């Protein structure tokens, strides 16, 4: 039980994303957290294909497919305000089969990678958010261990 908190850490002024991440990790280590490994969370977007749009001219929906290394055997699919699906990793294969209905926007794949720290009763993950080759920001996730 418990609550997981994900927040965005602002980049320190005059420093790059990487440097800020290093700063944070150093602080954590000084606090006494133990490094426990790495983590990765990524997200892909899919548009509904134009052919499936009805004559009424519905706007295409966006679907997000996410993976989390904490749940290595699962796949999360969700619409923005809609339902969320937790599935097997075979879901990715299914998406390939559904190419006709959903088109992936490859350019918009976003992911966050970083290290895990265990601090007392908490698990702290500090990650660098990247989209393509460029780093966009820092994400920090805290949850009870």
């Amino acid at each position, binding site marked *: 039980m418990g609550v997981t908190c994900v927040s965005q850490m602002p980049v320190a002024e005059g420093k790059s994303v990487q440097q800020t991440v290093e700063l944070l990790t150093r602080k954590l280590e000084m606090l006494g957290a133990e490094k426990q490994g790495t983590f990765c969370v990524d997200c892909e977007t899919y548009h509904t294909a134009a052919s499936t749009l009805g004559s009424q001219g519905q706007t295409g929906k966006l679907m997000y497919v996410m993976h989390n290394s*904490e*749940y*290595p*055997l*699962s*796949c*999360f699919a969700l619409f923005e305000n809609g339902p969320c699906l*937790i*599935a*097997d*990793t*075979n879901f990715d294969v299914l998406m390939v089969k559904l190419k006709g209905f959903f088109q992936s926007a490859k350019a918009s794949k976003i992911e966050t990678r970083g290290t895990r720290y265990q601090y007392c009763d908490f698990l702290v993950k500090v990650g660098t958010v990247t989209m393509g080759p460029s780093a966009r920001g820092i994400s920090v996730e805290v949850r009870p261990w």
Partner: protein
Amino acid sequence: MACAEFSFHVPSLEELAGGICGKTRIAEVGGVPYLLPLVNQKKVYDLNKIAKEIKLPGAFILGAGAGPFQTLGFNSEFMPVIQTESEHKPPVNGSYFAHVNPADGGCLLEKYSEKCHDFQCALLANLFASEGQPGKVIEVKAKRRTGPLNFVTCMRETLEKHYGNKPIGMGGTFIIQKGKVKSHIMPAEFSSCPLNSDEEVNKWLHFYEMKAPLVCLPVFVSRDPNLARLAQRIDFSQGSGSEEEEAAGTEGDAQEWPGAGSSADQDDEEGVVKFQPSLWPWDSVRNNLRSALTEMCVLYDVLSIVRDKKFMTLDPVSQDALPPKQNPQTLQLISKKKSLAGAAQILLKGAERLTKSVTENQENKLQRDFNSELLRLRQHWKLRKVGDKILGDLSYRSAGSLFPHHGTFEVIKNTDLDLDKKIPEDYCPLDVQIPSDLEGSAYIKVSIQKQAPDIGDLGTVNLFKRPLPKSKPGSPHWQTKLEAAQNVLLCKEIFAQLSREAVQIKSQVPHIVVKNQIISQPFPSLQLSISLCHSSNDKKSQKFATEKQCPEDHLYVLEHNLHLLIREFHKQTLSSIMMPHPASAPFGHKRMRLSGPQAFDKNEINSLQSSEGLLEKIIKQAKHIFLRSRAAATIDSLASRIEDPQIQAHWSNINDVYESSVKVLITSQGYEQICKSIQLQLNIGVEQIRVVHRDGRVITLSYQEQELQDFLLSQMSQHQVHAVQQLAKVMGWQVLSFSNHVGLGPIESIGNASAITVASPSGDYAISVRNGPESGSKIMVQFPRNQCKDLPKSDVLQDNKWSHLRGPFKEVQWNKMEGRNFVYKMELLMSALSPCLL
């Protein structure tokens, strides 16, 4: 009688006709009945007419018969050689006749055409008629007579044998080139007396010996022996040597025939003796059909006449009535008997056959040839043929094993059998050859020892040879051999798996793998050794078998469990799990399949996948077994050492490999019903013992032996005090104070002392008991003040009533107290201190 020599020229057959073929037929004219017993002089024939009668006018006729006495005036033998009258040719008579010379009684052969010019014959004749064309004939050569039958009879019998029922006729001519022949000629006068027997006939006939060359004209039919004698007549005519070649032997005694034949260069036609079948093959069939038709017509006529009932009626033939005495029941009985006998016969036959086959089977079993043994082998083991070798598989690969041993054995024929000597009883025509590293027998020895004496002693486990398990009676020797080899293979696989895990798995105290032994330390002062004991079947190892190396510490249960575990492992690899739902889901454990949709995190996945290796499992089991045995030993030693109170252990029958339970009761003998307050349930796990007290306390003890012992001792001491409390209730004494853990008095090293104080019903006396595990029991009795003599009189307490109060305590010498146990003694004390009310 000698024959005269003849020298007149005889026209050869070729002069008269080209051959004897073409529409051949045999004609039998007249018969012996016209001659015997008395002559019938009316029977005369003309040969031209005969030729017309046989529907071959102009036929060339050969044969033998009786001469025409009507024209000649006397009887003679006649040899017709006639070209009969036809449209194109005039008849030519080249016949001869032989008769008895009236002058000297010898035989006289003359040409008929010189005497008469007719074409007549009489009485009887066997004629062979043909167109006279050249054609295929049968040539018969004979050199010498070898048996009783004459030449013509031999030929006739040959024909009969060959053609069987079909009568075949033959006619032709042959020449006797060399030798002598005995034959007969009819006299000129007919016999006036009837000739009824052969002897009379022979007397009447004149017999002569004739010298070669002789030309003979035989005509005979293969069948109808009645006519054989008549049909087979040979009449001879003597001719010059320049005629046809080839000798033939006939009846008579003349035996000298020179071996060499005469030259055959004169005639083109070499086949002298020309015989021809004269009847066409369907003749017999036609005759049969004709006779059948005749009979059918007769029957038809009879039936039609009968139907009219005018001239002929059918009358049933009267049958004799059955004699009245014969009952129909006896008939039935007889008929039933017969039918039963028939049925019984069939059954007996069948039974015979069955017994025969059964005995054969038994014999076959005893014989045990290679193929039947191979069939038996195939029922137990998998075999396959590779080239000309038969290989088998004794590994567990098909059962799910991943051990890389090939495990193939070869089936060979046992040919070293000395057939001269008696076949030994256990002879088997089939032998199996197992891989050399699987020979002998093996087992896994699991033992727990106290701390190993020396590092140097590791790996030198003495293999004491376990006696081979007895094979089932009647199982062939190859079965035991293969089973032993398979066991060796399984033991090797188990040990390989264990050693692999021992090296890979990290534990606090690392496992040691030395040669064929794995050593680990489950508990600090304990050593678990798992070793693979593989002993071959050599005689050398037999010597070592006598040294028995404490077989008591070999844990058979763990060895068995190892086998079970490896088999379970095999089954897992075979993936005999339930099919996933839906069918497209991946294979694997059901909960693993759900881990995706249920978003299991790493911890949960790890917990799902926690699979202990073989070594870990077996170590855990060993620990448990050790703990359990030690707990039992502790309880037993306490029970034997301490008589009061008694300790009883009731072990549960149903145990787990990792958990056992025992119920421990501490009672006093004789007072089980009232003193049952100490009841402990011990759950012995892998590393600790959990004790559940009757009053609800749960205590966890470690694997240390001492802890359990101390605990039990403390419980026993508490029991005594509890017993006093119960006893007080029963006796009516009042409990003044009670404490399980008394803080006064000397400190016990084991547990705590307990104390109780009880007062008598009247209140005069009080008993105070302090019991400790180490210090034992101390009992003090409080007497009323008026019973104590050495109490100083006090100025404060002057009333007498104060003397009824209880005063000082006095200790009881408990060991001198009567009573077999503590509670009994207590009871006695209590009863002694309660005065009887009179």
